[in-house]
């Protein structure tokens, strides 16, 4: 566990948070009265099946979705609307296609009114941090998917966010690139030490990255289990093949399968029969 003292910024509190999506008769609860607290500097993965509301929950912490009940707080300030102190990284294709890589990364500083030369210099430093020195003048369309995600991470980090919110950032990458990006993220995080909330449906990814995994239930999303990952850092390939890793993986798989069965049961199919097909 990488604990930072309580007074360091980046503490996230979610209390009794419900989120509703859709309009009119189609409105439904995507997240139901979720509560948890993340100490500053912790790397937390939100793990759950597709459609469980984990991205919705992240969207509310980012400030893009309003709370139906409860709320989310960052360092005891209630979250209303998006802000650069809560950096959000999406799955793909959210770089500005009309800006060169260096200006994409420098964008947050431009919004703060930092001068062109200074913000470009800072952007170059961050591009170096994510291993993209030399690609400053490219347009996003000229980069591969993995490179684009590196730019996304650099673009968010330039605002020195207190918390980094990542919405399945590597889900669209091939397995090899994803593995490289996971290691890169841990390397970057070991240097910037912000709080990280990382949404994924990939069990291996969650156990490899996180200090702690919050396993979510099927819709409406609730926290099903709060799993601590008691592995040291830095983590490498050994961790992926350790007994402890496999034990945690079995536990997560059991939880996920459970949720799958409950989802089938909820749709009126015999739960036992649905379970037999998994």
């Amino acid at each position, binding site marked *: 566990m990488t604990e930072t003292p309580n007074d360091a910024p980046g503490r996230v509190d979610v209390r009794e948070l419900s989120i509703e999506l859709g309009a009119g008769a189609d409105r439904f609860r995507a997240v139901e009265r979720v509560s948890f607290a993340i100490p500053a500097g912790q790397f937390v993965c939100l793990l759950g099946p*597709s459609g469980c509301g984990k991205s919705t929950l992240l969207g509310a912490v*980012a*400030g*893009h979705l309003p709370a139906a009940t409860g709320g989310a707080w960052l360092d005891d300030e209630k979250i209303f*609307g*998006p*802000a*650069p102190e*809560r*950096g*959000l990284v*999406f*799955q*793909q*294709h*959210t770089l*500005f*296609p*009309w*800006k060169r890589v260096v200006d994409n990364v420098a*964008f*947050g500083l*431009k*919004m*703060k009114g930092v001068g062109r030369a200074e913000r470009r210099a800072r952007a170059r430093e961050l591009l170096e941090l994510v291993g993209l020195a030399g690609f400053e003048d490219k*347009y*996003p*369309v*000229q*980069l*591969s*998917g*993995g*490179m684009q995600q590196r730019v996304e991470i650099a*673009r*968010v980090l330039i*605002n020195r966010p207190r918390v980094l919110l990542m919405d*399945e950032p590597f*889900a*669209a*990458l*091939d*397995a*090899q*690139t*994803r*593995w*490289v990006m996971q290691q890169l993220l841990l390397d970057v995080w070991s240097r910037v030490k912000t709080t990280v909330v990382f949404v994924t*449906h*990939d*069990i*291996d*990814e969650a156990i490899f990255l996180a200090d702690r995994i919050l396993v979510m239930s099927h819709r409406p999303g609730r926290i099903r289990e709060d799993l601590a990952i008691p592995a040291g850092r830095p983590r490498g390939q050994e961790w992926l093949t350790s007994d402890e890793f496999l034990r945690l993986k079995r536990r997560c798989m059991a939880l996920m399968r459970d949720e799958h069965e409950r989802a089938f049961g909820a749709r009126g199919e015999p739960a036992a029969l649905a379970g037999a097909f998994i």
Partner: protein
Amino acid sequence: MSAVRSDRSDRSDSAPSAAATAGGARRRARAVARLPLQLLSLAICLLLWQWASSRQLHLGFVTFANVPPPAEVLDAARALLDSPKLWPHLSSSLARVGFGFGAAAVLGVALGLAIGRSTWARLTLLPPLEVLRPIPAVAWIPLAILMFPSSEGSMVFITFVGALFPILLNTIHGAEAVDARLVAAARSLGTRGLRLFSEVIAPGAAPSIVTGLSIGMGTCWFCLVTAEMIAGQYGIGYYTWESYTVQAYPNIVVGMLLIGVLGMGSSVAVRRFGALLTPWYQIKGGRHD
């Protein structure tokens, strides 16, 4: 990693290919190879025109008796080139298009961005525009003559009306189509208020806006020529119509060709300008280093 993979497979982390530059050279070579056939086709058309007009071909429903042959048109073109009236004709047409198109571009883009992004703007601004939109610009001519004290004003107005709607509609479409995730990302990075327009909506809509400007430039010339025929003193449209009334038939064709050249030239200029404004969009087709 064994768990569920996204089926939206993306490009891998491998270096981007450099094949596109070679593709450009090959395209150029192919264009050169095709040139003779295209020139031949043009030459045959000229010959047919020469033949039909010199024979005064009469097909019953259409007659070439009064159509000047190419050689006479060439002479008329030479005469116009030497004429002191060429520049007043050209400059008045270009000025009318310039003012009308310029005003349509400014207003069309500004209104289009607002309507495309704001429900309030859509509800207040769009209904009157929707009523006016189906009316062809040419149908405005009589009313425009009554509304504007100077005939210059009415002609500029006609070109403005002609260019406005293609620009407006393409801008609205472009602004609506800006990816919601780009807007969300910009807001998360600290973008507020009008800067969202200047930094995200306008550049995101830029390729559509360029399309609108290009179409608008075409309709602009179309409307201008018609307006000049009826209400002009100088201008290419006026020259063409005047040639008919004074029975200088070769000049009619010179006027027609001149209008074609000017229309094509200004459309190319708009597209070039658009390409300069949207360099990322040019790369999209083939990424190259």
